């Protein structure tokens, strides 16, 4: 692996190695641009992943201290764990389920489509589906998304069969095994899915796309990328002109290092990215970097979610095979007559017994709970993924007193459901129940949201600098050589799982950065 001197100010520093950062690093390196890729977590591998829910959680999850506030159920059930994302090389692409859906045209124009909604800070994205389509195409090819580029769909497991039986009886038309970045056949030197049932724990087949064993090694192979794991970035520095000049990070031994940079790209997820910008406040930027709008950390979105599990008179063994084994897309359109703006997807989901006990009804005990658990083998499950409303007051902020292991203020994640979110969730719970009733369920359980896996919006893209943090290329409005490269740039949440869009935006951003560097603009 090529290595770069700490004082080498010709490199682009990318902070975070997940869907955004890992992809961006590779795209830049392929163009011959030198990249130092800093990842806070340790490096695992297909070999070191474990088929064990709690052990894997300890291996991959981001467990640094965080606090929560607001009326969302997660703040009550999992007060110190607002998110279920990863601190490891590859970031949350080690953990994600693989669903790869394009955001719809009308969702890029959320403010125009939905109109003014009280309490919501809706904006149109500063780019359209047409702008992103060529990059979606590249992303789908790169990731190997099923049902695109001639790649066959995945076979549906028992959990999908239950969903399909109920959904088709209910009259739903768009029910299939999804567009998944999981190989249905060997492709790009990666194995095919063997239906292990441990997508969330790191795919031990390597069938699911993760930057850990695709983008990152490809970037290193170019000779233009150095990966430094266990490098936790504490602060981004700038000069008197306001241009960023490098980053301070804590290395594996806790020693502080300074890496110089020509440009810095922040891809630490919607919690850590705004936190880093806020923690980088200086006398010149007292409210944090790239925050002249005051929007850094605001408009936090996490998708309107919830799960429905149902028990049947016969075995299902939902844990066998892919976690997101299928999807119902009939509710994804915007149909205001349902009583809410936006739409939602219904996707199968399964948990093993250890996580089922923790998530089925957090805090519950007694015979009513154990009776549900005793139905485990006969259960099917689905997850709601819907567009939630951005709200200015839903925000990642710095805790006033609590500090992390590096002495930095921990992030607080505040979230209140918007009434539109609640109306959508109730509709989705009713439809989820109807699906399972139609499939012959004996018992149906509504399950509250898990800690958030889809964390969006806290450095949002905007046409006008006053409305957001970055432009349509993820370049900060305030500082030309400071970029954001993760899901925090989403202007609105849309109904689709976000990873494909994060990857498409990263590919597009790499073209832009190369162009700007070529022109000497940065």
């Amino acid at each position, binding site marked *: 692996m090529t290595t770069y001197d700490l004082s080498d100010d010709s490199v682009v520093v990318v902070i975070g190695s997940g869907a955004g950062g890992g992809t961006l690093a590779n795209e830049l390196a392929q163009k011959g641009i030198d990249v130092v890729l800093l990842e806070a977590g340790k490096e695992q591998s297909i070999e070191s992943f*474990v*088929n*064990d*829910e*709690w052990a894997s959680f300890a291996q991959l999850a981001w467990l640094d201290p965080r606090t929560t506030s607001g009326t969302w159920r997660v703040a009550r059930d999992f007060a110190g764990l607002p998110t279920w994302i990863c601190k490891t090389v590859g970031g949350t692409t080690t953990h994600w389920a693989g669903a790869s859906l394009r955001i719809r045209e009308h969702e890029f124009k959320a403010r125009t489509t939905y109109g003014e909604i009280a309490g919501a800070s809706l904006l149109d994205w500063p780019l359209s589906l047409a702008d992103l389509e060529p990059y979606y195409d590249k992303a789908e090819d790169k990731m190997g998304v099923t049902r695109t580029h001639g790649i*066959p*769909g*995945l*076979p*549906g*497991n*028992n959990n*999908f*069969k*239950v969903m*399909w*039986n109920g959904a*088709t009886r209910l009259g739903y038309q768009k*029910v*299939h*095994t999804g567009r998944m970045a999981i190989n*249905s*056949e*060997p492709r790009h030197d990666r194995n*095919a*899915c*063997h*239906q*292990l*049932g*441990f997508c969330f724990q790191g795919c*031990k*087949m390597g069938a699911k796309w993760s930057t850990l064993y695709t983008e990152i090694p490809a970037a290193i192979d170019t000779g233009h990328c150095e990966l430094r794991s266990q490098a936790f970035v504490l602060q981004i520095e700038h000069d008197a002109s306001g241009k960023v000049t490098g980053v301070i990070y804590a290395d594996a031994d806790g020693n502080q290092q300074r890496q110089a940079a020509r440009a810095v790209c922040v891809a630490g997820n919607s919690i850590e990215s705004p936190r880093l910008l806020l923690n980088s406040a200086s006398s010149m930027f007292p409210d944090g970097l790239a925050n002249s709008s005051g929007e850094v950390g605001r408009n936090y979105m996490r998708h309107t979610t919830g799960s429905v599990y149902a028990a049947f008179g*016969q*075995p*299902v*063994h939902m*844990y*066998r*095979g892919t976690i997101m084994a*299928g999807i119902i897309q009939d509710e994804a359109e915007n149909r205001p007559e349902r009583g809410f703006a936006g739409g939602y997807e219904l996707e199968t989901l399964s948990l*093993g*017994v*250890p996580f*089922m*006990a*923790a998530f089925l009804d957090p*805090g519950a*005990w*007694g*015979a009513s*709970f*154990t009776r549900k*658990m*005793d139905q*485990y*083998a006969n259960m099917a499950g689905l997850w709601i993924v819907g567009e939630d409303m951005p709200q200015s007051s839903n925000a990642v902020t710095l805790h006033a007193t609590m500090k992390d292991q590096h002495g930095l203020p921990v992030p607080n994640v505040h979230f209140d459901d918007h009434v539109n979110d609640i109306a959508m969730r109730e509709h989705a719970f009713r439809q989820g129940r109807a699906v399972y009733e139609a*499939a012959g369920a004996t018992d149906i359980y509504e399950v509250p949201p898990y800690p958030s896996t889809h964390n969006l919006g806290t450095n949002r893209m905007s046409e006008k600098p006053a409305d957001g943090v970055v432009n349509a290329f993820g370049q900060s409005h305030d500082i030309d050589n400071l970029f954001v490269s993760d899901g925090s740039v989403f202007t609105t949440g849309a109904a689709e799982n976000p990873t494909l869009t994060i990857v498409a935006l990263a590919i597009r951003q790499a073209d832009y950065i190369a162009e700007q560097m070529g022109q000497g603009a940065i």
Partner: protein
Amino acid sequence: MTKMILDRRRFLARTGQAMLVFGASGTVMFTDAERSWAMALDRLDAPTAETLLRMCRALYPHDALGDMYYAVVVEALDSEAAGDPATATLISEGVGRLDAALGVPFAALSPGSQTEVLTLMQADPFFQKVRGAVVFHFYNNPLVWRHFGYEGASFEQGGYVWRGFQDAGWLIEPDAEASPPVAYGEGAQP
């Protein structure tokens, strides 16, 4: 340091009348046919451990599962108490409140009364400590998974692609557009 770990098979070989024996210090032995095992304890005394065991069962009652599966939780709490005096105090005082609630030892209460006592204690940090420990330790035991029909790790068996991921024959088969056949190997279409 565990003072004594008993060989569970040694007791499995025994029959005889149900008998709770407070044996070697720090070890609770159950020697009836259903209790042919022992809890190895470092810190907690036997009556405390027995009460905790009853509490774990009352919190998450699965009639088909024997006490030995709940004892895993007690052992975990004991290990934590051995390394952390605050936890030891939390447990000993909490068990004291369980026994004091109705004036009759918790272990001697009927299931209905145990539930009543626990309901009144839900906000107690001791209650939350034990409840969390059951969720984590009891349901994370591969032996317990068998009861629930969960098979655990699958990679070593090659996953489920040839082992029943589509075997729910009581359902109508989805069409091939919705759910294509396995695209490789012995299940692949020619």
